[in-house]
């Protein structure tokens, strides 16, 4: 049995492909919550997160034919960030996530344990605010951990035929006159694990900041908690994190992890 299947793996890379992580909770809409609460709540976060970003709304539902927006209380996703814009708490009616993101000025990866502690503080601030406003506590439906990895062309890969050198599940397409040359390839896989679900999305894209071609490799693990107590929520997050580490190792080849300079 490989080390990671025995729960012994601790991944560390000198040059990790991850550019963004997101951990947090999805919950049922809170009765009485209004967009204006997000503005007032920012005041509580202000010492830690003095900068504001308004982000596109996350529709946490399956694709539907129509979506209803309540004009009396529109749904908005706001991001409160630290001065360096590397740490961010995202709040929308129905979710609270903490993100770490890589920037040119601060490229050093922040490990899960650090991000988790940040989330714990954010979550506590949020719950305290709800109590102060006599709003009900959140009923959490899902705990989630996501890793967004950018694989840059000419750095991590050259051609789409290289996908089989990166992902263990990708066997590649045989060269033939009917297939020709692959212009592009991507895939989206969901795994039901012993505990929770893992989603791996591999999608070619253009990075708007510099025009580079990337393969965006997103790994998300989620789990439904048994209750909404903090102990249970953070236990589920740890489980998601452990699942993500195992799936990452199972899903990527030794060869590409050498490129990212995995320390053993």
């Amino acid at each position, binding site marked *: 049995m490989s080390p990671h299947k025995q729960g012994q793996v601790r991944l560390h890379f000198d040059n990790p492909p991850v*550019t*963004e992580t*997101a951990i947090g909770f999805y919950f049922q809409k809170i009765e009485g919550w209004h967009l204006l609460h997000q503005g007032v709540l920012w005041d509580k976060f202000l010492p830690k997160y003095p900068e504001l*970003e308004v*982000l596109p709304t*996350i529709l946490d539902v399956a*694709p*539907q*034919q*129509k*979506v*209803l*927006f*309540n*004009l*009396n209380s529109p749904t908005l996703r706001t*991001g409160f960030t630290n001065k360096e814009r590397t740490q*961010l708490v*995202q709040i929308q009616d129905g979710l609270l*996530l903490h*993100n770490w*993101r890589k920037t040119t000025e601060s490229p050093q990866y922040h490990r899960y344990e650090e991000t988790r502690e940040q989330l714990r503080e954010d979550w506590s601030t949020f719950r305290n605010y709800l109590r102060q406003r006599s709003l009900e506590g959140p009923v959490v439906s899902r705990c989630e951990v*996501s890793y*967004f990895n*950018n694989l840059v062309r*000419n750095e991590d890969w050259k051609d789409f035929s290289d996908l089989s050198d990166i992902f263990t599940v990708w066997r590649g397409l045989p060269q033939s006159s009917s297939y020709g*040359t692959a*212009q*592009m390839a*991507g895939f*989206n896989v969901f795994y039901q694990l012993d505990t929770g679900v893992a*989603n791996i*999305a591999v*999608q*070619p*894209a*253009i*990075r*708007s*900041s*510099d*025009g*580079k*071609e*990337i393969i*965006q490799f*997103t790994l*998300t693990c989620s789990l439904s908690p048994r209750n909404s107590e903090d102990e249970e929520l953070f236990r589920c997050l740890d489980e998601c994190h452990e699942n993500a580490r195992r799936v990452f190792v199972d899903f990527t080849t030794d060869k590409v992890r050498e490129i990212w300079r995995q320390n053993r």
Partner: protein
Amino acid sequence: MSTHAANWPLSAASITVRPQATPSDQVRSSQLERVVRSDSAPWLPSLLFHLKLLENSGRNIPGIGDLRIAETTANQVRRLLAYFSEQNLPEPKLAPFSGGGLALILNIGDQELSFAAYPGHSDFVYMQTNEDDELVNDGVITLDQTREISDLITAFLFSLA
């Protein structure tokens, strides 16, 4: 005052939006960094492929000589292609020219709007011509000037009306 106005905002105001069914609805992507999916327009995969050919070999059209472009020029053009695809514009043409330059050309009827990238420059030279091939508008623009690019394209599209 009408009854409806008197009740505002107690009346449940809502709008219905029918989102375009796209594969992106089903795939997670970065929550913060702006990326444009390589299949966000039907013409984009093919243009990206030909752009790569120009970078690697300088040949995207059989029989035409070496018109190789630098990676920085290609990146610049990819950013503009990403912008075009987000704006649901029709397929532009790739037009390499000697000296390592590359133009993106939008054609509607006999009218043309082109954006030319020159090696070592981070801006585009744009040029709009009418059906008689006469110059209508030209200048230099950077990709940070998104409003101006949008105005140029809007003016181009409405000049046909």
